[in-house]
């Protein structure tokens, strides 16, 4: 069953890389439950990948740290920034509106940090008290949900995503969202449009 073995090997690799779809996850889970050989293969690949990955990461990271693709937060035009603490609620509402549209990360409790670029350097604001937003979707302040059309957002096993929102002041705010797990699921609800002026 060479093709089946190759299929499972590929699914295991996709699992390591956080690229499994929900259906693929189910397929892999079923295969692992039924076959001790596939479970052994998973363990082997995990072990070797982890060993070799740690070696290259330690060698190639200049500071031995964890510089991610999406977590690079640049200092964008800091000379144009001004102290905007009184605009943060508006920006948060804009960010929340952002989060109720587009694809989704479900079933995870997200730890959201709002990164506001200002003088002096980046200030992290947490916890965040969410303002009310007029939408047709109930918002649980401790549990973000985003509703969008179509397939929704596919996110891999990455722990962090970076989003941007344009505040009423015209400045660009970056939100860094730490997730514990990401899945892709089709969403049927209509997109919620929240124009900036309504917030």
């Amino acid at each position, binding site marked *: 069953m060479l093709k089946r073995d190759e299929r499972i*090997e*590929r699914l295991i*690799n*996709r699992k*390591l*890389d*956080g*690229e499994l779809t929900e259906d693929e996850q189910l397929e892999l889970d079923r295969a692992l439950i039924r076959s001790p050989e596939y479970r052994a293969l998973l363990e*082997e*690949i995990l*072990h*070797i*990948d982890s*060993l*070799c*990955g*740690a*070696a*290259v*990461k330690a*060698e*190639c*990271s*200049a500071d031995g*740290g*964890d*510089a*991610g*693709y999406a977590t*690079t*937060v*640049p*200092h*964008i*035009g800091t000379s*144009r920034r001004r102290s905007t603490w009184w605009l943060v609620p508006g920006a948060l509402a*804009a960010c929340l*509106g*952002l989060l109720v*549209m*587009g*694809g989704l990360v479900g079933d995870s409790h997200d730890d959201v940090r709002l990164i506001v670029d200002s003088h002096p350097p980046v200030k992290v604001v947490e916890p965040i008290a969410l303002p009310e937003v007029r939408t047709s979707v109930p918002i649980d302040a401790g549990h973000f949900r985003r509703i*969008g059309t179509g397939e929704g*957002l596919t996110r*891999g096993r*990455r722990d962090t995503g*970076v*989003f*941007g*929102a*344009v505040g009423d002041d*015209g*400045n*660009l705010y*970056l939100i860094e969202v730490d997730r514990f797990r990401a899945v892709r699921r089709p969403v049927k609800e209509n*997109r919620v*449009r*929240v*124009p*900036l002026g309504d917030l």
Partner: protein
Amino acid sequence: MGVAAKKQIGDRGLGEGASIEVMTTMLASGEFDPVQPIVEAVMSGDRPAFDELARTQADWVRAVIFGVLGDRDRVDDVSQQVWVAAWERIGQLRDSRRWRPWLYRLARNAAVDAGREQTRRKRLFERSRAEHQGESATVSCGDTVAEAERRETVWRAIRGLPALYREPFVLRHVQGWGYRQIGEVMDMPVDTVETRLVRARRLLRDALKDKV
């Protein structure tokens, strides 16, 4: 609206009245790039911006170099050459949105050139290392001999990977990039990235089976 956001929305042919929905779509499709404004500043000659770019992108550039060369001893030297070249040739970058593939090509070409120059010397060096097993340069204070040998075994397996498999493997682990990001930088389809990662891991398993 900030300049960066204006430009990125403007590039899509949308007006200034674009709402959060557009921004969300851009984010969902991966179009929003927080580094792009820095690149644009570098393109206009902003040296501090260049320093910021070099600082924040150093790791994956090193990963590309190592992925091609397979020789960690040369990564630092080649990396410096890459950043010097990046500053000198920033004028060649026409589209700031394509900065990653551009920087990747700089790094890759520098690594390939370094590999060609050092080919004969590297062969001699590796032959010498093989002959002097146990006097590995990877032994550090506190290491047992077994740990040092294990580490060297792992490195030998990684170095033994063909570059076309090693490159995506290194980028995957150093940067944690997904298939799409790796494919964008290396300018290859997502399926190809996935296949090369599968083969890299298969080769590593074959090389390290029962050894670690």
